[in-house]
């Protein structure tokens, strides 16, 4: 009897396991209409899967809030002097004897 009920229910909504395995397919919009509806129905009624969803969302939120990497002034200076020393080929201007100071600003 229990099995029969579970079978009927799973036609209508996803199981917890399906919901956890397919959760990113849902958020990325990669599910068929039927599958999306099955999963959404499940998420409406299952507290445990709501917690799972909240934890997934929190993880993403925390990742998004991680401090941004910064290019330091020293790194910027190093890269810029390298750019000046090895300009892309072909060089922007003919290498004259005293033209190095012209690109000062």
């Amino acid at each position, binding site marked *: 009897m229990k099995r029969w009920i579970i079978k009927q229910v799973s036609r209508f909504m996803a199981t917890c396991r399906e919901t956890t395995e397919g959760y990113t397919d849902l958020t990325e919009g990669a599910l068929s209409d039927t599958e999306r509806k099955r999963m959404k129905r499940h998420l409406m009624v299952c507290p445990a899967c709501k917690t799972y969803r909240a934890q997934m*969302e929190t*993880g993403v939120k925390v*990742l998004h*809030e991680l401090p941004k990497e910064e290019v330091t002034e020293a790194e910027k200076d190093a890269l810029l002097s*390298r750019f000046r020393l090895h300009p892309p080929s072909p060089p922007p201007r003919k290498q004259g004897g005293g033209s190095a100071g012209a690109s000062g600003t």
Partner: protein
Amino acid sequence: MADEDLALAKRIAAGEEAAFLALLEAIGPTLKRLTRTFVGNSAIAEEVLQETWAAIVDGCASFEGRSGLKTWACRILINTAKKRTAREARSVPMSSLGDGEEHTVDPSRFAPEGYWVAPPTPFGEGKTPEGLALHKEVREHIQRALEELPEAQRTVVTLRDVEGWDPQEVCNALDLTETNQRVLLHRGRARIRAALELYLAGNP
């Protein structure tokens, strides 16, 4: 955007410093973070980053604008990093999903019918996703979990969730199919979630 990128590349190819600085400002932080993702925090990272920038500058003349400068530069970085780490033979092809099956949640936590027998514990009193995201200890915990992800997952999660790229950009930069990108994202996020769950269990 593609036109702007093409124009910027042309100006860099012509040796214009302001254009180079503009690109450095736009993608410098991302490239730096990605370099760390590939080669860690070593002295090699510094060299890889410099080599990458040199290759970007040289490549600007032949940049055709078929993808954005950001994804194009990212591909250069990957190639440079791969060359450097090839000797260590620790890098896997980005397109590989690793071991065939990887469960989002330990299967033993579900009954055979697919319902939780060991469900995740709800957030404690007064804990909200927003609040947790601002919590220093939580951040450090998640940062470590991110660093411990397998390389392909770590790269995808970094680009999508830390850097905020859209799926298509990630596919282009990493030569991934949409499906594989999504699978790697899911597995990575699932491991991050598991780490969060573990942290919350220890800090109710």
